[in-house]
């Protein structure tokens, strides 16, 4: 039987005969090339795919940002139309958050978490592949709205006499990334479902919904992985901080996304079926949308920033040659930030007329969240204090992260004072604040992580001078772009405005900001170009080029598909570093190795199941447009989804045995129990 042959150890997976299930379905274990990438369940390959898609969408979102800045460079400019501008900033925000930062964080989760905890793979490899492809199709649906918009602008739809109606002329979403109802929803009496915006909003709703499914599936997977699959001796308080922050982030996603899921379903019912959740003229409550959105949306901010904090907490000790200062309190403050993150959502709503008591409560809670954030900054400072700082590209970016994130935190404290916020809310001051957090903080952290782990991922070292040049351009350009926005906001420039008149005193700094944005863009192109080139052609490097501290650096670069030839046993935090420089801290479990490592079989089914979302994603907006029979496309998509999951269940657990190189003769360190 194929099952038996699969469990005879082989040196290479292509030696395998294809495995067939009882239904005759083939598990594509032998595949190489693009089929291998489409069917892979290997967390490292999934991580690389996440990273590649994320970097692509970073560039898409960046182009949108540059179009926005070009439009705002001069007063009364008409580089893009008002509607196109509104679509651009909506898609810029949505793209950067859901298609840029979140998947790039997911790329790090995927690649690193199993390596850092000494595991073979994630807990549910096929579910992991499902998360990836669901993200890919969700992103595709969201951006397909651009295709329809440009097709409409090019006149492709002019021959239809229905093209003048609003729903057929407004194809890309234009509500802002938080899509406030009722602008995104409906008006009119019961059941009329008259809309303020076109079908772009429907694309946005279903796109975000699908992306949420991807994030939820991935989060369950990582929580299971981190809780259950840690190497022996890897207690929770010995986890690398990046893995800790992954865990906190995953918990946040699971608690936060249901709120947006509910909100999106309600909005979809409003628009498609004439429900009245947010329709004020039929008794609905627009402010309900804001509460539901922000109780997701604020934790979302921490979902974005905690992984970057985790990365920085790995980079700083490595290049300071010192362990992380106050590890327990960094971990604890991360958890406190996650917890408090659910108690501050209404600070996005200080101007909605909450009344003084809730305003005061959320004002104080928002100030409170500055404390654990400050604690992290103090401890990072403590980490480099007394160290030997090596200014490698990842370290430069990590130091930039602390500096810029601190500035973003400071303007955050300013916002927490609600009376001051009533002047700053929805002005460019807010734009400056969250870009300092999300670009100066998150993006620099993620770039630092890319430079830091790239040698591990591809076994090749990125070019350092290009890295320095890119980092300098990014940091300087970023400050030039967003620093002046503090002033613009205080000078009364509201956000999301297509243009402005000369005479308001906003001309100079808008122009400066645009120059800065292009400088930032150039820096990103240099860095991404440097990294892309490195992935294929870069100079080969050693397994541990940075003198790393955590388990992934004990592996060969690039990491073999089975990760650890034998399951490691660790005796301390930063076990690999102490093992190198002090006493024995890493061993391996004495489980032989002659039989090889048990590998999960590859599968088409995650991809098939995810493809169902493609049909749902196009069907729902078409249904909202009133295209006849579009509902059948949604039902067909659901059918594909269930078919994929059903066959997934029927293909059986699969798996095969892979021979690994010579066992490391490593006894279990004796101190395991002591710590």
């Amino acid at each position: 039987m194929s099952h038996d042959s699969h469990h005879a150890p082989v040196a290479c997976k292509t030696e395998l005969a294809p495995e067939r299930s009882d239904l005759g379905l083939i598990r594509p274990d032998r595949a190489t090339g693009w089929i291998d990438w489409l069917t892979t369940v290997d967390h490292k390959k999934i991580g690389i795919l996440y990273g590649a898609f994320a970097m692509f969408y970073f560039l898409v979102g960046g182009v949108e940002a540059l179009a926005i800045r070009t439009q705002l460079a001069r007063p009364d400019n008409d580089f893009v139309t008002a509607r196109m501008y509104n679509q651009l900033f909506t898609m810029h925000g949505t793209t950067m958050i859901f298609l840029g930062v979140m998947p790039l964080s997911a790329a790090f989760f995927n690649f690193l978490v199993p390596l850092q905890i000494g595991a073979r793979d994630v807990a549910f490899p096929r579910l992991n592949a499902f998360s990836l492809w669901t993200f890919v199709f969700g992103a595709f649906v969201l951006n397909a709205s651009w295709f329809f918009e440009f097709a409409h602008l090019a006149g492709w739809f002019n021959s239809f006499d229905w093209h003048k109606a609003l729903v057929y002329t407004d194809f890309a979403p234009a509500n802002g990334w938080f899509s406030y109802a009722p602008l995104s929803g409906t008006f009119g009496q019961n059941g009329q479902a008259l809309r303020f915006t076109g079908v772009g909003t429907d694309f946005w709703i279903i796109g975000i919904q699908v992306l949420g499914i991807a994030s939820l599936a991935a989060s369950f997977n990582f929580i299971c992985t981190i809780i259950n699959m840690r190497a022996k001796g890897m207690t929770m308080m010995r986890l690398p901080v990046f893995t800790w922050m992954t865990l906190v982030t995953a918990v946040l996603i699971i608690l936060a996304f249901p709120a947006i899921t509910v909100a999106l379903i309600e909005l979809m019912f409003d628009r498609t079926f004439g429900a009245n959740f947010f329709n004020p003229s039929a008794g609905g409550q627009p402010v309900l949308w804001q509460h539901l959105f922000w109780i997701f949306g604020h934790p979302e901010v921490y979902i974005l920033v905690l992984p970057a904090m985790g990365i920085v907490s790995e980079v700083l000790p490595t290049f300071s040659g010192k362990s992380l200062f106050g590890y327990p309190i960094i971990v604890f403050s991360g958890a406190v930030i996650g917890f408090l993150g659910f108690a501050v959502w209404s600070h996005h709503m200080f101007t909605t007329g909450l009344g003084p008591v809730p305003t005061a409560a959320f004002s104080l809670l928002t100030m409170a969240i500055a404390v654990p954030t400050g604690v992290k900054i103090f401890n990072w400072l403590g980490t480099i204090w007394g160290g030997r700082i090596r200014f490698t590209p990842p370290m430069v970016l990590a130091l930039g992260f602390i500096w810029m994130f601190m500035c973003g935190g400071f303007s955050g404290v300013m916002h927490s004072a609600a009376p001051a916020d009533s002047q700053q809310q929805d002005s460019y001051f807010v734009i400056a604040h969250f870009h300092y957090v999300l670009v100066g903080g998150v993006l620099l952290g993620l770039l630092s992580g890319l430079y830091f782990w790239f040698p591990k991922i591809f076994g090749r070292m990125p070019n350092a001078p290009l890295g320095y040049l890119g980092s300098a351009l990014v940091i300087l350009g970023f400050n030039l772009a967003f620093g002046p926005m503090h002033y613009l906001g205080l000078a009364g420039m509201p956000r999301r405005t297509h243009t402005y008149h000369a005479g308001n005193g906003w001309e100079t700094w808008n122009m400066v900001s645009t120059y800065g944005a292009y400088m930032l863009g150039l820096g990103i192109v240099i860095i991404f170009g440097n990294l892309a080139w490195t992935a294929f052609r870069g100079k080969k490097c050693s397994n541990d080029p940075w003198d790393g501290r955590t388990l992934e650096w004990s592996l060969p670069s690039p990491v073999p598909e089975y990760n650890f030839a034998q399951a490691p046993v660790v005796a301390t935090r930063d076990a690999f570093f102490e093992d190198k420089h002090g006493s024995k801290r890493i061993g391996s479990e004495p489980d032989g190795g002659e039989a090889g490592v048990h590998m999960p079989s590859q599968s088409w089914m995650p991809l098939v199941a995810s493809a169902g979302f493609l049909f749902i994603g196009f069907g729902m907006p078409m249904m909202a447009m009133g295209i006849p029979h579009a509902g059948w496309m949604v039902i067909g998509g659901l059918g594909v989804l269930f078919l994929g999951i059903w066959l997934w269940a029927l293909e059986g657990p699969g798996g095969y045995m892979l021979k690994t190189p010579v066992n490391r003769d490593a006894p279990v360190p004796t101190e395991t129990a002591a710590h």
Partner: protein
Amino acid sequence: MFSRFFSRVGLLAAPFLAIIMAGCSKADMTVRQSTLDPKGPVAQVQFDVFMATVWLVVVLFVLVGGLLVYAVIKFRARPGDENEPAIVEDGHGNPLIEIGLITASIGSLVIIAIPTLNAIWYTDDVPAESVPTSKLSVWYPRVEGGRENYAKTVEEQVLEVDVIGKQWWFRFEYPQLGLTNDAKHSVPNEMVIPKGVAVRINLRSEDVIHSFWVPKLAGKVDLMPGRKNHMWLQASETGHYYGQCAEFCGDSHAYMLFRVEVVEPAEFAKWVQRQKAPAEPVAVGTKADKGKALFAAKSCVMCHNVGGHFGAGAFGPDLTHLASRKSLAGAWLDNRDPKAQLALEQKTGNTESSVEVDRATLKANLIKWIGSSGVAHGADGKTLTKDVKPGNRMHYYKMFNVAGLRETNQKFTAEELDDLAEYLLTLK
């Protein structure tokens, strides 16, 4: 060499300091919509809280940032370090330092929490101490015919202004003074309030969420459909203030501006009387008379009210006193002579001083505004001008029984536009 460059991180701070210093001139702090130039108690309190946060943040920035720069320079790797033994230690941190820093952080937040809490209650509604001096009976003089619309009880109240947001303009109503849309006396674009008097603002929306923001007088509060929001403000100086919708509200959000004209109380009473006066009759046979006929023929009358001439429209802005207003089209177009205005602002050194409406500018604006958005006009009847306000209701709306100029395919020749403008110019 790159490493050495980056070890001097402190150098990076220099250009930013320079930028901050350059941005600190007085002219930059007092621009039209500056939040840093408060002209009333509400804006002042909000500014004071802001400055408290600024000083706190500056101190923290210098302390933490200074330490960071010091650490980065002091603890940089030096040649020969690679021969030293690695630092192997447990990163437990130092409990005393941690607790000290946490306590200090909480303490510094208390410093801003107290003024914050005070200001939250102060800015919420007209404070009790302001009510006696703000009662209508105190400052609203007994001008003849000015008292029929409010009863004795109303006199004991503070002045209330209803602000109604629509896509994409603001309508102002003074229910206590009889200036309401129902009474065909509403005021679009420009809110007029008396100086030194606390005004309660009731915020209402007829479609999506908007936000009322006139930075020099008060921070913003949203206009939520289906909700009754309020705020208050008081202006300490007369003048012309600039405001803008601050919540994204669709295609023309950027073009949804408004003005606040602060006048002496006596002047305000006269203004109220003027708002109630009907438009003057138009002489028969003049260009304006032809324009008046066009106003009816081209369906303008469906949406716009002109007191004394036409009374059907309630959907669009009231035009009875159009030519007396300094702005047009949701305050996006300015009816004043731009050069004269700029010269005056430079002379007086503030943006609140304002010249009067310039007839030629207003006429040009009217022609541009009505003739925009793809409404064919000109000698050939085909010339199209650019949208003044993209998606604006006057041209594009089509809902229920109301339709815009473009949707009803109205065409104007250049002469017709001129006539129409001449008519509108008579509406003072």
